[in-house]
């Protein structure tokens, strides 16, 4: 069964550094998402992406965050200047359509640790 893949599985970075988290969504999916989960807390929406542009973003997704689909397969999340509070699991997800019964398929996540 096709799956969403994320790399790296674990990223350690120093505060203030830039990080890029990478995702390869399922190939025929059209809608892409980033979510994050701070340890012990709920899974939080960051941003959705469709037709090469951001559809929606949360208040978490400030100017330090950006997303890109540089080619036909990759979907990246960049954090320009990381803060300690950015430490979390970051999940990429994709779905085939925007219909309510079209579920999100998640990758296994990237654990980001900011020191």
């Amino acid at each position, binding site marked *: 069964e096709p799956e969403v893949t994320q790399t790296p599985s674990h990223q350690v970075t120093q505060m203030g550094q830039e990080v890029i988290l990478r995702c390869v969504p399922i190939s025929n999916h059209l809608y892409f998402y980033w979510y994050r989960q701070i340890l012990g*807390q*709920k*899974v939080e929406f960051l941003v*959705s992406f469709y037709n090469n542009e951001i559809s929606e973003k949360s208040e978490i997704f400030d100017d330090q965050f950006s997303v890109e689909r540089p080619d036909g397969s990759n979907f990246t999340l960049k954090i320009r200047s990381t803060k300690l509070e950015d430490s979390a699991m970051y*999940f990429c997800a994709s779905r085939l359509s925007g219909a309510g019964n079209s579920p999100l398929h*998640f990758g296994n996540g990237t654990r980001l640790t900011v020191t």
Partner: protein
Amino acid sequence: DQQVKQNSPSLSVQEGRISILNCDYTNSMFDYFLWYKKYPAEGPTFLISISSIKDKNEDGRFTVFLNKSAKHLSLHIVPSQPGDSAVYFCAATPSGNTPLVFGKGTRLSVIA
């Protein structure tokens, strides 16, 4: 602002018995409700969903019940198996292309 609430952080059930995971929501605009299962070091995996026009949806051992007037849904797993031990997230959305809002999850332990 917790629009989706899972008030039980954990639940233990004996193998073979029924597991009932509960979820409450506050946003009356939610139209689709989904349950995801998450194992450690993996992403959430879609389990089952229900739209607001239904009150029940069944898929094998998993059944989701929706009570719109009470703004409550539940996931029933019967019979429970040790492999069902995971964190279960309830999620909801007002419409298809609106982001899912997740609850905090309930950790289910099925004891052999």
